[in-house]
């Protein structure tokens, strides 16, 4: 096992752990009060005008019909094409679209290389770019996608950096990390271009790396350009879970647990809420004066007058 093996294993493990920890922490926060925001796309037959089941007389007597396809119809264009930015902030759209879509392309190629590497490790296929076999052609195609993704990502990162520096509204709200993040993403793309541009065996090597990782066998021989790119990617992978870039998955929660979360109290939610109402309150304003002694039910059933004494 090489140092590269160790670094990749460690980074991947750290990434997964941190994402799981973060996800669990969010998932475990208490049930909150309803705070949905319309349009809610799973409202069958009503999403188009932003309506809800509350538009029906005696709404509680009607069955709840959820249109999950409706959610997908909103989510897919949002994730792939950043539709909301296009609509509400068109000046920023191309830059951020290029940044994100470039990155998605790299991630896509990585996923395919991973699969190729796994199959190669299992002895099912041999990934060799350039030959005329189906796998060779697929490898070539994905090499081009990688190349394109790198160019798009680099353009996006540079344009975003430009916006961050020269658009006063954006600059004012930027912290050092914004520049660093974009710099890092730009570096991934640019180093990727160098690698794919200089390595005739790019596809073979890319899949070979994964094959070596899966089977804990020696790595293919990698150029300085390849190592450069891999190093930056690993740094990014380790760094990302500690930043706002976790939005790539927490968006699931902001949408499905808040914006579109419109359920009435059902199942074990009732018990959870009861337990939450039983918690002691320490808000200190005179009309509450919780002092860590009263619980939420005490507060809600008092008038607020007696608290002052």
């Amino acid at each position, binding site marked *: 096992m090489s140092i590269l093996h160790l670094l990749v294993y460690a980074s991947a493990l750290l990434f997964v752990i941190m994402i799981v920890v973060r996800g669990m922490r*969010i998932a475990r*926060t*208490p*049930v*909150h*009060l*309803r705070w*949905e*925001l*319309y349009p809610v796309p799973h409202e069958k037959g*009503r999403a188009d*005008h*932003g*309506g*809800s089941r*509350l*538009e029906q*007389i*005696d*709404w*509680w007597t009607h069955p709840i019909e959820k249109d999950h396809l409706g959610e997908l119809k909103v989510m897919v264009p949002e994730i792939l094409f*950043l539709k909301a*930015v296009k609509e*509400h*902030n068109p000046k*920023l759209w191309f830059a951020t679209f290029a940044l994100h879509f470039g990155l998605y392309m790299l991630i896509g190629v990585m996923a395919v290389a991973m699969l190729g590497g796994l199959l190669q490790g299992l002895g099912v296929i041999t990934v060799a770019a350039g030959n005329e076999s189906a796998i060779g052609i697929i490898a070539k195609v994905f090499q081009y996608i990688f190349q394109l993704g790198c160019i798009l990502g680099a353009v996006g990162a540079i344009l975003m950096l430009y916006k961050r520096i020269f658009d*006063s*509204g*954006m600059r*004012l*709200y930027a*912290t050092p990390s914004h520049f660093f993040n974009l710099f890092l993403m730009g570096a991934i793309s640019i180093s990727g271009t160098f690698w794919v541009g200089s390595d005739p065996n790019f596809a073979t090597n890319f899949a070979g790396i994964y094959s070596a990782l899966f089977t804990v066998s020696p790595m293919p021989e990698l150029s300085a350009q390849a190592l450069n790119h891999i190093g930056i990617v690993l740094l990014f992978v380790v760094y990302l879970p500690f930043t*706002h870039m*976790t*939005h790539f998955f*927490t*968006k699931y*929660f*902001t949408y499905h647990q*808040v*914006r579109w979360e*419109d359920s009435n*109290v059902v199942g074990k*939610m*009732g018990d959870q*809420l009861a337990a*939450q109402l039983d*918690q002691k*309150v320490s*808000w*200190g*304003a*005179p*009309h509450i004066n*919780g002092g860590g002694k009263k619980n939420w039910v005490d*507060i*809600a*059933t008092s*008038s*607020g007058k007696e608290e002052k004494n």
Partner: protein
Amino acid sequence: MAIKTKKRVTMKDFSTPSESLAEFDPEETIDLPAPYDKIEELPGYKQMKEGTRDRLEASLDDTIAVGIPKPESKEEEEKLVEAFLRGLHNLFSKENNWTFLQPLTLSMEHCARCQTCVDDCPIYEASGKEEIYRPTFRAEVLRRLYYKYEKGGNKLFKKFQQGDIDANWTMISRLLELSYRCTLCRRCAQSCPIGVDNGLITHELRKIFSMEMGLAPKELHEKGTVQQLEVGSSTGMNKVAVMDNVEFIDEDMTDRSGIKVETKWDVEGADVLLIHNAGEFLAWPENPGCFALLLDAAGISWTLSSDLVGYDGVNYGLFYDDAQLARVAMKHLDIAKKLKVKKIVMGECGHEHKALGVIADRIFSGSIPRESAMTLMEDIVFNSNLEFDPERNDFPVTLHDPCNMARSMGIVEPQRRVLRKLAPQFREMTPHGVRNYCCGGGSGFAIMSGNNFTDWRVQVSGRKKFKQILDAFSDVDPGPETKKYVCAPCSNCKGQIRDLFEYYGATEKSGLYYGGLVELIVNSMKLLKEPFIDWEMM
């Protein structure tokens, strides 16, 4: 429209003492159509009373919503800062803020600062893009405080990721005011691709001040929820006063309509417990009057409650304080249980809708169902035996969507179906429905009028709505001879629209009137010999 490049207020400026960080400039705001386009012909912007800045904390901009006295000593200031930080701590604890902790932390930790949300804010736009009113500005302040004081982790790394801020009294006193320069309309939240909600962040900021420091506008707290819980209504009306008033309304309605109107009180086992915003009884008595007439005519078994709080659907707690919110909601639900009604129907009041309709759902589960008056009215108009003559409503009508009803509850179509059927000249505003603009009186602003706050709210927060209303009628005779009706099925929105029309002289200049939905329904009822709406009395 000439928007000059202003000096951008930074996070650092926000904590640095200075006289003011923003002021309203009529030259830089959005233009209104004629005859409201000549600045010199409008009443102008009333400045704060002399000496205000010496007595009160007023260094944010050129108005005050809360206006707390300046601390007398350094020690007092320090105590206030400590209290704020305690509040900040409570805000991020699951015991004290389970109610909103998840959406709040999600919004704190994932904003990309891309500013995609900002152009959707009517306040930011109408202010001429004053930096401090940008939806992301106050959110950024709270975010930095959160990372600095509440979130664990390496200090340097946090600074690198999230920036820094100084929590001093200057900043905190400004933040208090700034939390009352956003109507919680959540229009910005709709456009955020990440799902961050800057309206919610404002709401949570207000909670730190109210729930820990006891600081809130007196209209919302002392005269609002406190008075409601003690006397029965935020209007100050006790049971005797409200019953007297309603008796008078019944008589008046009977006179005007020729149909005997008799409000029912405390009928046990009624199908419907109707809860109005009690402001209606005083300011727009024909609204509860029309409800009484309509429900009786439709043969619905209904009642009002004369119990403490039972006759006032207002719940200002929704805007600033979870404890007050729960107390008022609890009273409403208890009363409904006591009366053994089948359902509560929420009158024409947007925030009552949201507080009772969705928020209370998880405070006290398993209670009596709540329904919107919009759906009940729709049902009556389309499914009862009553007959209507739309010709009686043959004047231009547009519809204002209360944010709480539309954006936060998805109640959009019922009121439109009614208008499409009963108002031949109904036309939409642009945009409308869930993408509407707030009236500018949201989150309690409509009842706040201390010092010169009304000026700010009619010229800044309500300006976009006023323009929208004018635009909706741009195809008809602009003069006062053609009466135009803005249907606003919400007491708070009506209060704000009243103030807008008064300030701009819109009734005299443009024939603009406003009212609820039920009035239009009753106006077209064939049961009445004549139309009910009397423009002179509006």
